[in-house]
């Protein structure tokens, strides 16, 4: 019983920090915007650091708040035209020692078909799947604009 309490507490601490780590992969600053009314999609952002000495890859993501989740990147052409597309090869390489930033105008976890309103001040669960480090349970902090 005591062990379960400790485990629950531990999970709580990790969730409160809105980040997590496994197998040398550390994810911090996981956030998203409140969903505007009538919006069907959302984007989640974070920093992923590979503290280990072997390369790893982010290969997928899932969240109960999204019908479908994809890994996307924005691209900008010369004159300010921007668009987004699924990342090439369906995976994001995280080199040892490197931090990959998911941020507006760059990479994002695309949440297609939001199943619930994303309210400022709340969190939604997100699972990131790494090729080596496996699944990482995170909480996305919905930050007021």
């Amino acid at each position, binding site marked *: 019983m005591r062990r379960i309490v400790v485990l629950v507490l531990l999970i709580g601490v990790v969730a409160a920090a809105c980040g997590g780590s496994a197998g040398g992969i550390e994810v911090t600053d996981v956030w998203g*915007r*409140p969903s*505007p*009314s*009538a*919006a*069907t*999609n*959302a*984007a989640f952002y974070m920093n992923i650091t590979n503290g280990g000495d072997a390369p790893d890859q982010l290969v997928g993501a899932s969240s109960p708040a999204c*019908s*479908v989740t*994809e890994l*996307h990147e*924005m691209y*900008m*052409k010369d*004159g*300010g*035209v*921007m*668009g*987004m*597309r*699924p990342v090439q090869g369906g995976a994001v390489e995280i080199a040892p020692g490197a931090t990959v930033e998911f941020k*507006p*105008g760059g990479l*994002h976890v*695309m*949440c*297609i*078909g939001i199943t619930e309103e994303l309210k400022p001040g709340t969190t939604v669960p997100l699972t990131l799947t790494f090729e080596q480090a496996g699944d990482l349970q995170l909480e996305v902090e919905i930050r007021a*604009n």
Partner: protein
Amino acid sequence: MKRLPIILAVTTALLAGVWFGARALRPYSFHGTIIQSPEPAPDFTLQSASGPVSPSDFRGKVTVLFFGYTFCPDVCPTTLADLAGAMRILGDEADEVQVVFVSVDPDRDTPERLAEYVGSFDPRFVGVTGNEDEVAAVAAVYGIFYEKHEGTPASGYLIDHTASAMVIDREGRLKLVLPFGIGPQDIAADLHELLK
């Protein structure tokens, strides 16, 4: 030699005066690109949930035009949130600013849907669209390039579009092009300068 401290003090004061004077003379430098258009910005009429809207309706205010679509989860909410942030920074002055969001996705974005969408960033924002030809004409004359491309089965089609915002001054002239991602502080500073 008794007068040396006085001379020093006066010299310092003079230099400070010149420095501040030069600073005051120096023009404000905008974060966006200035367009010195001698003629009014092209006018158009598109539909909002509460009726037709034209940029010329907002003569006397500073108008910000931004093109996008509600399906877009990254560039559009980022820019609208930055514009809403700029409105908050401007305080009372923000009542003299009108943000107009033009949807380049008339198939999915109805005027009602747009009103709900932009309203959740700032209730003063207006969302407009029209039929495909009308939207194409408006985007073309504002130099906004957009095109559909296929996404995944889940996302459906996506639209690449120019992500800069256009600012029209009180006299109805296109004055400024704001690039994507310059942030609420800089947007507010530029708008404040145009409101003077």
